[in-house]
């Protein structure tokens, strides 16, 4: 059985040679311009992804046919220093509206200088995504993760 024990958070960091305000704005206002388009859950190709600039805002993708798929919600909106959003994409690779199943992504921006910003990201509470059997089915049953990984595999192949 899958243990409900905590899964260690994922962390990532990047330093960019731009002022903190710009780093925050590109991350949020221009989210759809840089998010790798192959990572999406909608049935149609992703046209863009939108992060609404306020606590309580939606975080979602918009397909090329205009359809929308939620990814999560904005929990904390503190420009230009901090952003917390939920990631509610479960093991079936579908949006799960239950807040009990929401993992969290916290992004912290800190100015190393007037033209340099460090961005630290933490994706935590991953165990909330693991709905026991659902995740196992997602990986072994040919749906969910398998489909996404297939998209990922195609994209990776096309790059070489």
């Amino acid at each position, binding site marked *: 059985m*899958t*243990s409900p024990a905590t*899964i*260690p958070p*994922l*962390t*990532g*960091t*990047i*330093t*960019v*040679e*731009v*002022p903190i*305000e*710009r*780093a925050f*704005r*590109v*991350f949020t*206002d*221009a989210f759809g*311009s*840089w*998010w*790798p388009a192959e*990572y999406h859950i909608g049935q149609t190709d992703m046209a863009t992804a939108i992060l609404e600039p306020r606590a309580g805002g939606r975080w979602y993708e918009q397909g090329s046919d205009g359809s929308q798929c939620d990814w999560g919600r904005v929990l904390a909106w503190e420009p230009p220093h901090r952003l917390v959003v939920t990631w509610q994409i479960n*093991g079936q690779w579908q949006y799960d509206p239950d807040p009990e199943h929401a993992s969290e992504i916290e992004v912290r921006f800190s100015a190393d200088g007037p033209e340099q*910003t460090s*961005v630290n*990201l933490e*994706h935590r509470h*991953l*165990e909330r*995504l*693991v709905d026991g059997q659902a*995740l*196992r089915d*997602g*990986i*072994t049953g*040919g749906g969910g*993760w*398998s489909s996404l*990984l*297939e998209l*990922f*595999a195609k994209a*990776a192949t096309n790059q070489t």
Partner: protein
Amino acid sequence: MSTNGVEGLGLLGDPTRRAIFELLARRPCTVGELAQQLPVTRSAVSQHLRVLRDGGLVVSRAEGTRRIYRLNPDGVTALRAYLDRVWEEALSAFGKAAQAAPVDLEQEDP
């Protein structure tokens, strides 16, 4: 730029291992089936599978005379490793976008 995932990134950082992981995500395979789809030898595939199995991403079981490899159905490690890749690529793309952003983006700031 670095992503500090513990086991996932290291395991999938190698392009051949990543390709094996992605093939197994589509369907369980034998070493021979994997080698047919990759530009490496069976022995290289076996070595990568051993690393993936030791890292908890892949499991195997004997079926008659064949040994079938599949993603670890427990899923937790695979999920984590996969998201690790997502964030590594996303942050890298963000870094490029931030440094290429048009100047008017910051001038709009109230």
